[in-house]
C-alpha cells in the first residue's frame, strides 16, 4: 500500500521532509505501517513515543488504512 505521510517536529527531521509517499507491503493497519516505517527509519525507535493520526484524530494500531488516507506522524508532543 502506498500512503501519504505528513511529518511534524522531529519526525520531519527523521524523514528529511514534511510530506512523503511511503510504500509498505506487509499488512494494512497503523501497526503495520509503524513496523515498516521503523524498519526503514530506525531513528523512530529511539523516540519516547510514536503515534499516528488520520482525519485529525489519534488512531490505534488496529486502525485499517486505505490508499486515500493521509497519515500524520505524531512524535512526542511538547506544547504548553
Amino acid at each position: 500500500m502506498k500512503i501519504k505521510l505528513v511529518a511534524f517536529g522531529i519526525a520531519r527531521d527523521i524523514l528529511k521532509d514534511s510530506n512523503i509517499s511511503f510504500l509498505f507491503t506487509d499488512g494494512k493497519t497503523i501497526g503495520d505501517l509503524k513496523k515498516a516505517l521503523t524498519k526503514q527509519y530506525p531513528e523512530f525507535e529511539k523516540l519516547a513515543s510514536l503515534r499516528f493520526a488520520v482525519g485529525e484524530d489519534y488512531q490505534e494500531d488496529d486502525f485499517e488504512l486505505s490508499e486515500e488516507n493521509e497519515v500524520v506522524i505524531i512524535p512526542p508532543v511538547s506544547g504548553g
Partner: protein
Amino acid sequence: MIDIQLTAAELNSKTCEEFVASNQAGGTAIFIGTVRNQTKNKSVLKLEFEAYIPMAKKEMQKIAEQAMQKFDAIKISIHHRVGVLQIGEIPVIIAVSTPHRKAAFEACEFCIDTLKETVPIWKKEFFDDGEVWVAAHP
C-alpha cells in the same frame, strides 16, 4: 462556553479572563506558561513552537469539553501560541471559571496537564551550541 485559540499573535491573559467572567463564578484559575531562560541548567536562547493546527485545535477543544463536564466549569479559555518565542514570552494561557474555587484549580491543572500529553504541538529549544526537540527522546 469554550474559547480555543491557536495563534502566532502575542497572548494576553486579560482576553482569557474576560472570556471566562461570569456572574455565576465564585473563582477563576488562570495558568500562564512562560518561556524560562534555562532548562536542566542550560541557558535557553529562544523557543519555537510548531503545531499540526487543525488537530491541535480539535484536541484543545476536546480537553475543554472534558474539563467542563468533569469539573462543572462555567467557561474555559485555552490559548496557545505558535512560532518563535523569546525568554519571558507566553506560549500558553488557560483560564477556567467555576462556581467554587477548588474546582477551578483542578480544572485548570487538568487542562494544562492533558494539553501537554495530547495536543500535537512541538517545542524546539535553541541553545548556544545547538537545538533540540523537547521530550522527543526518553
